[in-house]
């Protein structure tokens, strides 16, 4: 029982990352009809926004400490962050400690900017081109983006811990009357889940309840008609691209404490998120979210020892196996619209 609850939690957590990326991917696909292979790279750039901000906060000057020596036997140069000098050590430490949450504020404008620039500078010219061309050009862009990141940050993962306040775990057992210390879950992962829920909810609310969202939804369904009504749908779609980039970026920012970011993390997620989108059904936002959570949970269950003892290697293929079964039984994924991307 505890095992099941924990794996559901794991699945929800993994699922929130999948769902967030798939949500952005579907927004772009649904609004612009563009297959964006650079979406994984946007996730990665989001993560590196967090890395960058924490580096900016901890920009340091060197102070020579004669009591210690470095690896060559010279007096050790200790880095002292400028924030120590400006705000004192306590505040400085707190700032450095809270770098990841602070990065949200930093990442939103950066990601929207990148998204808008990408759409205006590149994607715009590919609306009428075949999907294969879109895939190739965005794939090329993804390579370029990740190589640029690699050039500046190297190939190794960069640890980006969560604030101290979020370290440690929440004991569900103690809280809900199970044995204590068995169903525990790290705070930050719970934060991630909640964050994902908020973002997903916000995107849906935005599309559902604002005029802007209404126009965009109308445009998703029938672009020509909306344009005929004299609405500048292009500008809204550009902004939607920015929002989708921001969603991917925020997913990346918040993911950094869970796994240290590296330059190819986007590619690791790319294929998976495409599977999620397609299983959910091309062009369906609820489908993308649903499929994200579904695959996350199934993946978690498939990695249990009890399962692997019966079917060794199932954890290696579960996502793809589920994708195949769903696509064969439901031709357009879970909630796909007819005629989208079928030619």
């Amino acid at each position: 029982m505890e095992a099941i609850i924990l794996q559901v939690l794991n699945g929800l957590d993994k699922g929130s990352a999948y769902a967030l990326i798939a949500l952005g991917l579907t927004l772009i696909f649904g609004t612009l009809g563009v297959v964006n292979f650079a979406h994984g790279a946007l996730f990665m750039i989001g993560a590196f926004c967090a890395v960058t901000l924490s580096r900016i906060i901890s920009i340091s000057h060197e102070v020579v400490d004669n009591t210690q020596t470095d690896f060559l036997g010279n007096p050790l140069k200790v880095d002292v962050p400028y924030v120590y000098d400006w705000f004192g050590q306590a505040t400085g430490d707190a700032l450095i400690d809270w770098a990841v949450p602070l990065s949200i504020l930093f990442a939103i404008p950066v990601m929207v900017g990148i998204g808008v620039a990408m759409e205006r500078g590149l994607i715009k010219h590919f609306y009428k081109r075949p999907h294969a061309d879109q895939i190739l050009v965005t794939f090329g862009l993804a390579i370029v983006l990740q190589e640029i990141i690699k050039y500046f940050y190297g190939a190794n993962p960069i640890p980006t811990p969560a604030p101290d306040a979020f370290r440690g775990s929440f004991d569900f057992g103690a809280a809900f009357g199970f044995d204590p210390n068995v169903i525990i879950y790290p705070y930050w992962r719970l934060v991630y889940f909640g964050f994902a829920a908020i973002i997903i909810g916000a995107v849906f609310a935005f599309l559902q309840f604002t005029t802007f969202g209404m126009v965009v939804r109308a445009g998703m369904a029938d672009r020509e008609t909306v344009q005929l009504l004299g609405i500048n749908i292009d500008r809204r779609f550009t902004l939607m691209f920015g929002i989708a980039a921001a969603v991917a970026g925020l997913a990346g920012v918040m993911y950094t404490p869970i796994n240290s970011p590296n330059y190819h993390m986007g590619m690791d997620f790319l294929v998976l998120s495409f599977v999620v989108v397609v299983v959910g059904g091309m062009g369906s936002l609820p489908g993308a979210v649903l499929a994200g959570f579904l695959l996350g949970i199934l993946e978690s269950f498939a990695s249990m020892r009890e399962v692997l003892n019966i079917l060794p290697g199932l954890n290696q293929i579960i996502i793809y196996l589920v994708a195949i079964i769903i696509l064969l039984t439901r031709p357009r994924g879970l909630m796909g619209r007819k005629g989208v991307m079928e030619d």
Partner: protein
Amino acid sequence: MSKLNLTRRGVLQTGVVAGAGLTLPTYLRAESHAGFTNAPTGDTVTLGFNVPQSGPYADEGADELRAYELAVEHLNGGGDGGLLNTFSSKALQGNGILGKKVEYVTGDTQTKSDAARASARSMIEKDGAVMITGGSSSGVAVAVQALCQEAGVIFMAGLTHSNDTTGKDKKANGFRHFFNSYMSGAALAPILAANYGNDRKAYHLTADYNWGYTTEEAVRTSTEALGWETVATVLTPLTQTDFSSYITPILQSDADVLVLNHYGGNMVNSLTNAVQFGLRDRMVNGKQFEIVVPLYSRLMAKGAGANVKGIFGSTNWHWSLQDEGSKAFVKSFGTKYGFPPSQAAHTCYVQALLYADAVERGGSFNPCAVGEALKDFEFDGMGNGPTLYRGEDHQCFKDVLVVKGKENPTSEFDLLEIVEITPVSQVTYDASIFGGELGACNPGA
């Protein structure tokens, strides 16, 4: 007609010879008259440095490349001479190898065996490299080693830790200085028992591929021999990034030690996740829960940040060693690049020097002569104490370091501290236990 100014293989067919070759139905082996592949004929010799430059191990590859460049500099008499001064063999004079200036070509393995072989073949076929070295994974090492065997050049393995490289996949033309899974297990187990007691229950998470299997096997057998119980072993996919679903079951088991048979990105992520789930703060069976990482790499430890603190593992070499060889190497490397070398850099540097030295002592670049010179070669002063290049499997036997994540690092390089230097006698094993067949050396002619 016989102007032989070819930097590439010393083969000097003139138009006449080739014309004859073309008219004959048989084919002419380019290298035949020299006796072995890519015999250097000019006043230079070309070595091939095949390291990962793209993909997840690119930083490790970059460090390997730095070490090779340093080794070339020292071999050619530049710099401070580095380990040439401390090396027990004095055959190398700092005038290149056998009087020939050392040149090198580089390539990208991408940590894929196909790409690594393509790159190595281009070095052999195009650039005339007489020795290939480098690499950062066992898959690549085994693939390139087999290629070198076929092509008739020497392969000096870089970072490869799987038993297979000098076990079931060993080849006469291939040599490994780095230690292996078996040695990690043998070195770690006594330390773990001493620190955590003989009554422990271990839970293994193992990367689902050859290296993972051999490492798990090594750690499991050597800890079980000291009284530990293995509660479970679970295989995790290589492509896994979030290990949460593998870690939560540990919370329900009565295991009190977690062994992470992971390397590289897998290790960074699984360790980070394990610490996230509070495993290190757990008490099980009245004991503190512990995590063990059998193979440590400083570069990867950096990726896991503070999570490595206090965690045991083993490593081939560490810059904080205080023997003369290590100090000389850290000084050379640190002066040139501004930071201390990694274990990957160390093993690559040493491999380059060992090869050069073997050529000098054997008096020829012929792989068979080199192999003969390296066979059962005993040396010292390279940073690992007295070392033996065992003839039966071309594996180096030397002390193994057991290390622990440092509690209070003074710099971003100061992440590990040495707990124990396990003497070579404890980690030596019988060459036959892993099977495989060395075969005969292939000079390619």
